[in-house]
Every structure is written in structure tokens, then in C-alpha cells.
């Protein structure tokens, strides 16, 4: 018999922290159950495509089970668009299989390299949150391996507590094996879109207020300019085009194909993304669009997943890795305060994105709530960056906002509890299904969501 456990280096997308731990890789659902049964009394956590940034999908001193090879599509109803798939199926898999039939995943993040399990566990949001809610809103049922070793069917009607706690539950309620959700009907691979330049934060809010007619909105925002131009950027809004067919989803255009060959790993260096190059990039990006408003038709890949064309771009930050800070706050003044704090700190963010969420809010540990969300990448500057993030936490918490767990690698337990007032009710459900804390992650331990006996 070959051993199912082997040492592997594991990290999130930000590559901090990263460490070696015992891992198993499941080919079939039975392998997940076998891993749970043979984990030597240590806690375990699921790991999908590792696109969460921090320490959510890892467990030093415990076990990690890779779910990516649980990638079978089990059922599809052409009439309703409802699909049932194993949890390791990726957004890429879904698009390649179903776009030719006229269906698109109901919610997609900024990369198509995420698994359905990861999408549910982080209750991910997309550019259409204001009209479609988050991924969990579209999930009808899941099959999940829980601590007892049983595979439990959970939905809004059956084992509803487990179902709700698993959406956004960051893998701490068990390992999702399969899920059923509805895909959205679309005509083809194209997006009708407009880009509008805004000169500052006020103008962002003004453009946003008149963008109700668009199902997808997101803006790139320059976090390196202060004063009057603080918060300048480009507002992108669009919708699935009604233009039919227009090529298949594999044909993302010549540019994309050329970009596919670009691999960021050889460029890995700590100095590559520094304050200067980041400022230069942001200015160039802002000035690239000359006109105030540009309307165009884009391929879904460049609209939704622009970064996917550079493979391994997280290596551009060098060996030190990087961190993302994503928060949502209910009011505009807090957004301004956060931006002021960041531009003042002189720690440039290479990529910053701003978007307004819609009204839906799933409770538990799910992130989205009404307000404005801002996501910023920072090279790992160490202590000064952590201190900046602490200051940002204060602004966000005071405003009644919160930080996204899928991006988090450092938040304190107290801050977390302030931001997620449902945490206790969530933990009660976790303990009902996992009384001995078989499922634990480093993030869960840090935030006080799990811990204690595992046997």
C-alpha cells in the first residue's frame, strides 16, 4: 500500500505564510473519508485551488486534503440550468463545459482558478453582487463529509443549520464533496461594456449611482495619488451580450493566447514590485484610457479574469510574498478614511479594486454586506504593513464593516469578533456537527473559530 499522506509545501495565493505539512490528495470522495479516518488524530482542512490569500486552507501540525481532483460534473438539466458537480470542479471547468450550451456560472470571482468547494466555503462574490448576491445564494444543496465520517445532504430544508454554516464557513464544518446550483443563461462569450474614467472618490460614487442598468460593475482605483485626485480610477460596467455565438469559449483571442505563454515565475524578485514601479504602473494605467467614456465589446475572459493570462503572477512579489486587504464598509466616509490612511502610509498597492455590494447578506461568516468593498494588494513589507492593516481594521470595525476571511492572513481574534457578530452562533453550529474539532485551519485557530480537542 502506498501512503496517502506526504509532506507538501502549502500556502495561500499570497505565499505568506507557507509551510510544509502532511497532505493527502483525493481522487474520489472515498479518499476524503479515508483521509479523515486515517489522520492520526490530528485536525484536518480542505484545500481547493489555493486561491484564498492567507492561512485558511492550511494547517501546520495537522492534515490537509487536496480536493482539486474531485472534478466530475455529475448532472445537468438543460431546461433549468441546474448543475450538480463534485467540489473540486473549477470555474474554468464550468465555463468550458457550459458556455457552449449557453450557460455561465451565476457568480465568478476575479480568477477562474477556484473550485466550487472554495467558492462555497468563502461564499465568494463577483462583479454582479448587487444583482445576483453571492455564490452561496445560488447553491441548492451540498453533500458534505462531516466529522462523524458521514456524508450529509444539506440544503435550506434539510440540515439547514449545517448548510448555512458551511456557506462562508471556510472549510471548518467539513469537506464539501459535491454541490448543486443553478447556472445563468447567457447568449455567448461576449460582454457589452463601458469604461468610465473618474477623477476622484466622489465621482466614483456618482458614476456608481447611475449604473443600475448594468449587471456587472467593478472599478480599478489608483491608491497612489493623494489630495484632489485621491481615488481616481476607471469604472467598468457591463452585461453579458445578447450577441449570439461569436466564437467558442476556447478562443479568447490572439492577445490572450500570447499572454498565456507569459509565466511570472522567472521574474520573481523582491525588488520588482516596489513603490516606484507600482506608482508608475498606476499612472500609466489611468492614462491609458484617453477618453472619458469608452464603450466596447469584450471577451468574458478579459472582462472577468484579466489576471489569469499571467500564470503565477503571485510570484512577481518575490519570495517575501504579499498580502491583500479586502474590507466592506457601509458608508462612504469610511472608504475615504481608509484611502487617506493608505495613501498617507506610502505603501503603494499595485492593484486596488472598489465595488458596491447589493443588499443581500448571508450571515454567519459570510463576508458580503451592503456597502462599499475595497481590495488592495501589498507587497509583504512586514511589520509596517501589519501596523497599517491594524489601523485600517480600526476604521473598518468602527464603521461597522468587516474584513474578508478569504483574503486574511493576520487579523486578530478580537477584531474578527467585532466585525462578525454572528461568530458565536456560527460556532455553536460548528460544534454541533464537529464537537471534537476534527476540522481546523490555521486561520480558524487564530480567529478562535476552532481549536480544542481533536480525536
Amino acid at each position: 500500500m502506498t501512503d496517502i499522506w506526504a509532506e507538501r509545501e502549502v500556502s495561500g495565493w499570497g505565499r505568506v505564510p507557507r509551510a510544509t505539512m502532511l497532505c493527502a490528495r483525493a481522487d474520489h470522495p472515498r479518499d476524503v473519508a479515508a483521509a479523515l479516518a486515517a489522520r492520526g488524530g490530528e485536525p484536518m482542512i480542505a484545500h481547493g485551488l489555493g486561491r484564498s490569500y492567507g492561512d485558511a486552507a492550511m494547517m501546520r501540525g495537522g492534515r490537509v486534503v487536496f480536493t482539486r481532483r474531485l472534478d466530475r460534473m455529475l448532472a445537468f438539466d438543460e431546461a433549468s440550468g441546474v448543475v450538480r458537480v463534485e467540489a473540486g470542479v473549477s470555474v474554468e471547468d464550468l465555463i468550458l463545459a457550459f458556455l457552449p450550451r449557453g450557460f455561465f456560472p451565476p457568480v465568478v470571482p476575479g480568477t477562474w482558478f477556484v473550485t466550487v468547494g472554495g467558492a462555497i466555503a468563502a461564499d465568494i462574490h463577483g462583479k454582479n453582487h448587487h444583482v445576483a448576491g453571492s455564490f452561496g445564494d445560488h447553491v441548492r444543496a451540498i453533500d458534505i463529509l462531516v466529522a462523524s465520517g458521514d456524508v450529509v445532504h444539506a440544503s435550506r430544508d434539510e440540515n439547514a443549520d449545517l448548510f448555512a454554516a458551511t456557506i462562508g464557513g471556510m472549510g471548518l464544518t467539513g469537506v464539501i464533496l459535491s454541490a448543486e446550483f443553478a447556472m445563468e443563461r447567457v447568449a455567448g462569450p461576449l460582454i457589452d461594456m463601458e469604461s468610465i474614467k473618474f477623477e476622484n472618490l466622489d465621482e466614483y460614487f456618482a458614476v456608481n449611482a447611475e449604473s443600475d442598468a448594468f449587471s456587472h460593475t467593478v472599478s480599478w482605483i489608483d491608491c497612489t495619488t493623494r489630495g484632489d485626485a485621491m481615488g481616481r480610477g476607471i469604472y467598468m460596467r457591463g452585461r453579458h451580450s445578447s450577441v449570439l455565438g461569436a466564437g467558442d469559449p476556447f478562443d479568447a483571442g490572439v492577445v490572450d493566447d500570447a499572454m498565456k505563454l507569459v509565466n511570472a515565475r522567472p521574474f520573481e524578485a523582491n525588488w520588482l514590485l516596489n513603490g516606484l514601479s507600482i506608482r508608475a504602473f498606476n499612472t500609466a494605467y489611468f492614462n491609458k484610457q484617453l477618453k472619458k467614456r469608452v464603450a466596447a465589446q469584450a471577451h468574458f475572459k478579459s472582462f472577468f479574469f484579466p489576471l489569469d493570462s499571467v500564470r503565477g503572477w503571485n510570484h512577481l512579489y518575490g519570495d517575501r510574498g504579499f498580502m491583500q486587504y479586502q474590507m466592506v464598509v457601509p458608508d462612504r466616509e469610511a472608504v475615504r478614511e481608509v484611502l487617506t490612511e493608505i495613501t498617507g502610509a506610502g505603501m503603494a498597492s499595485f492593484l486596488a479594486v472598489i465595488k458596491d455590494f447589493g443588499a443581500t447578506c448571508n450571515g454567519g461568516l459570510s463576508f458580503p454586506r451592503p456597502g462599499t468593498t475595497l481590495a488592495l494588494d501589498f507587497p509583504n513589507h512586514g511589520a509596517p504593513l501589519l501596523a497599517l492593516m491594524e489601523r485600517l481594521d480600526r476604521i473598518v470595525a468602527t464603521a461597522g464593516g468587516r474584513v474578508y476571511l478569504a483574503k486574511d492572513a493576520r487579523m486578530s481574534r478580537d477584531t474578527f469578533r467585532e466585525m462578525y457578530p454572528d461568530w458565536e452562533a456560527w460556532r455553536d453550529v460548528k460544534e454541533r456537527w464537529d464537537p471534537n474539532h476534527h476540522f481546523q485551519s490555521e486561520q480558524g485557530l487564530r480567529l478562535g473559530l476552532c481549536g480544542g480537542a481533536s480525536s
Partner: protein
Amino acid sequence: MSAWIFGATSRVGEALARHWAQRGYDIVLSARRREEAEAIASDIALRFRVRAHVLVLDATDIDGHEAAILAMAASSGAIDHAALVFGDMGDQEGSQADSAAAAHVINVNYTGAVSICETLAALMIEQGSGNIIGVSSVAGDRGRASNYIYGSAKGAFTLYLQGLRNRLHEHGVGVLTVKLGFVDTRMTWALQSGLPKATPEASAAAIAAAVERGENVMYYPRFWAGIMGIIRAIPEPIYKRLKIG
């Protein structure tokens, strides 16, 4: 067009099934676990819009092979490619201590494989066409202390395939022997080695390409041909003293 995979629940087998399905082949997925084979069948039918059938078969159930294969062939039509991917490495020390365990390893990798191949050969002779692909191992090229029960069964399978190729040639039926080195599957998950592991997808693509070219014997990854050439060239008086992996 149809392609049959025996051992469809292995990642190499599944990758081969996907490869051929993407090129329009209907697929027959044979495995010993029905539920898993059915999950793979739905996946293939959904992704590639071909027909995918399940044939439940245990490699060691020799008495049942012929009838099951003939029944499936009767309903699914001519067989273009049939790949035998299943295998069981067993546990060398267990096989040394327990002859039933050793016999099981031999039965899966050799006796069972022969039984399935003979049924396929008869069908393909009748068709006057087809390819049989036998997935063997570099472990079958030379016996080693650490896995010679498995290795000898694979070595016997390699020799068998050679004879079968010789017999089927005049009937227009091809036989490809695939000697895998390290492929990144459950078998090698815990294996620490300086040598790279090929992905199942790359292995499947290479195997399918070799079938198209009418190759007889292939190593994959290809550099294993060189490694095994050297290992086979070591004189036995020296080889017997070596400890290799």
C-alpha cells in the same frame, strides 16, 4: 468511434478517457466500483457530449470477463481503442510474507490483464481492426528487491503484450506497450524522488499520440528509456549488490 478504458477510476485512465472523448470517441469505462465509474461517465458525457457507458469488472474475476465484455461490445459497436490501465502495486513485504497477497498482485497485473486482452483480441480479429494498449511499468524491465512481485507481474505482462502484438499484426490489430515511469497519481503521491513526475494528462496525450503513430513500445516520460537502458546494461554480478529505490 469508441474507446474502452479498463481501470477508469485511475487518474491515468480517466485522463485517457477524457482525451479520446474530447476527440469525439464514445467511451466505455470499466472499473470495479460502479458509483465512481458512473460519476466519471456523467462527467465525460457532460463535458464532451459523447456517450459514456459503464462496465463493472474486477480484474481478478476471470470467469466473468468474456461474457461481460461481449455483452457490452454487442450494444456499443466496434472497438477502436482498448486500454488496460488498472494495476495494483500491492505491498512488497506483504507479498513476501503472504502468498495470497502475492497471488493477488499477480492476478490483477498479469492474469487478469491477459484474460481481458484475449477477449479483446478475439473481438478485434473479427473486426479486422483496433488497438490494444497495455499499461505496464518500468518496474517490469528488471527485478528489484523493493517491488519484484509487482515488477515481475508487469514484466510478464510486457512479455505477453509482445507476443500478442506478434500474433495480431497480420490481423491489422495494433498492440502498444506503455512502460510508465513516474506519473503523478496516488501510486506515487508519497514517493520522494529527484525525478520529475509526469501529469496524468500529459501521459494520456502521449499514449494517444503513440497509438496514432502505430508505435509498439513506449516509455513515458520518455527519458525513462535511457534510464532503463542503463539499468538493464548493468551486469548481474554487480546489479545484485545494488540497492535501487
